[in-house]
């Protein structure tokens, strides 16, 4: 459903994405991994037209993103950012209903019954319905991420982009959130592209992994093929051991501290 062809983008001082091409199939859960500064966030921002590419094109369902207007993109792609920086507060319900803005008609002043129904449904789906009267500023990190996903789902997108959805969460909330994403992926046929820093979480939940290095695609394949110690040591430039998770049989990356540290 999403095709990226020969994408180059960056600033006059240097390119952050150097010729990336790949394809995402419908109903896929793709994880983007790679070292800091490898162009992960830039890639996400380019898909939503926040950054204009220097060369190359992004095709979404046969339509070129560069020729679509922002509203049409927002009807198809929703984004869950890493953090929100809000100066003005609002209730959870109001926040989630913002996701209906792209579907508004030109002179529509009030939410339609359909808007309210969708808002309610996505809050139930993400288990945030009980929070609906609460103020956003009073939520915990885990609650904010779920509410943010609810807002993105209210856009009724075909493609959901997430930038490190689990980075501020404890391990319990990480698993709950990713279980929710996988459920959305399997049951609601949502295509998901998410940036991960935690290779083990990416390995457990993603159908395929896109490994970026220095703005280029190093490899794109199933977690078993991408997460090998040869590839990881080359990309991350550190000593790593890859074993199998005994429960799920997925690759599991074990960090190896410098010998001086553990021989003490």
């Amino acid at each position, binding site marked *: 459903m999403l095709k990226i062809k020969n994408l180059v983008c960056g600033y006059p001082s240097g390119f952050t994405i150097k010729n990336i091409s790949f394809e995402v199939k419908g109903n896929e859960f793709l994880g983007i991994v790679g070292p800091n500064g490898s162009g992960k966030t830039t890639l996400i921002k380019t898909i939503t*037209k926040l950054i204009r590419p220097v060369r190359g094109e992004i095709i979404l369902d046969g339509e070129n993103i560069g020729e679509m207007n922002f509203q049409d993109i927002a009807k198809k792609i929703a984004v869950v950012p890493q953090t929100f920086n809000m100066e*003005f507060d609002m209730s959870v319900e109001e926040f989630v209903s*913002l996701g209906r*803005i792209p579907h508004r008609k030109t002179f529509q002043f*009030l939410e339609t019954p359909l808007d*309210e129904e969708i808002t309610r449904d996505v809050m139930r789906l993400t288990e945030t319905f009980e929070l609906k009267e609460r103020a956003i500023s009073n939520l915990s990190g885990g609650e904010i991420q779920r509410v943010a996903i609810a807002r993105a789902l209210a856009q009724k997108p075909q493609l959901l982009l997430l930038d490190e959805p689990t980075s501020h969460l404890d391990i319990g909330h990480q698993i709950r959130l990713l279980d929710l994403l996988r459920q959305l992926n399997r049951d609601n046929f949502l295509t998901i592209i998410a940036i991960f820093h935690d290779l083990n979480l990416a390995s457990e939940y993603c159908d395929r992994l896109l490994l970026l290095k220095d703005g280029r695609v190093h490899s794109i394949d199933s977690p078993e093929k991408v997460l090998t110690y040869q590839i990881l040591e080359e990309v991350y430039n550190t000593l790593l051991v890859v074993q199998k998770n005994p429960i799920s049989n997925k690759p599991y990356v074990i960090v190896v501290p410098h010998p001086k540290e553990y021989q003490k």
Partner: protein
Amino acid sequence: MNTSKTKKPSENRNKRLIRWFSIICILLIFVFVVSFLSFCIGSGGFFFEKIISVISARNTPEYSILFNIRLPRILLGFAVGGALSLTGVILQGIFRNPLVEPYTLGISGGAALGVALNIVFRIAKIFGVISMPMSGFLGAGVVIIVLYFLSIKKKILEMHELLLCGVMISFICSSVLMLIMAISKTENLQGIVFWMMGSLEEPNTNLIWWTVIISILGLIVSYFFCFDLKALLLGEEEAIHLGVNLERTKKLLFILASILTGLCVSVAGIIGFVGLLVPHLMRMFVGNDYRILNVSSFLLGGGFLIFCDLLARTVIAPLELPVGVITGILGGVLFIYTILKRRLLFK
């Protein structure tokens, strides 16, 4: 979970509509009460008991005081207060900062400078009285363009730096104003002082009507952007993700803000802090939904300025205080209170 399932969504919507409607009604009542008080009280005498007989009998001095002096001031106060508050709401929405308003960004200062230059160079004598609001608009526009390029287009300035720059632009403008005053002739001084302090005394009835019409048009235009502003609550990138054409929206809202500010300053001078105080109060009471915030801020701002003008006219009657002094004192105190409260909240 089960109790909430029984509630239909449309009921939810109706409840909110009723809430909005009652807020607007309360504010309209407030505006009418303040206008009525302002209509009846003044240095020309109190007309509470005999208001009906005064209105019904034309060609009396009392009738003339009411309809030629007090009524225009009420109309102008309503339009200027409303427009300034609306501008505050819009600018706060664009910059996503509750401390932004025409005065703190230096836009009022720029407009006042434009008007002062107009007086000194006697441009109004050549191009007519309409050149006054035009030069105010130009002054506001220059400051807004500078702010636009520094913070929005090139992203050179961070938010707090932008606020500091705004305050500095205000200082620079008032210093240049003082320079102009120091070297200008005495007959021009009166007019410039009038603009620096702010007053709702405006002899030109046409200009009053223009102000009323344009400020209400501004309110209507602002409603085309209420969803864009709502999306902007989440941040600029998020607004784009929600389908807002950010560049265009900001440009148009900036033009709207400078038209409204330029108009207000050129007819009433610098009236500070209305655009800060009123949106702040309204955000506290009605929340950040711009569908209700725009109109309620407009109404409260209009009522508030009529009230301030009433105070300005009566506190040391028969002499008159500049209305900018009253709003400055009231608004400045709240400004400090807001900052202190934020500080205490985050510690």
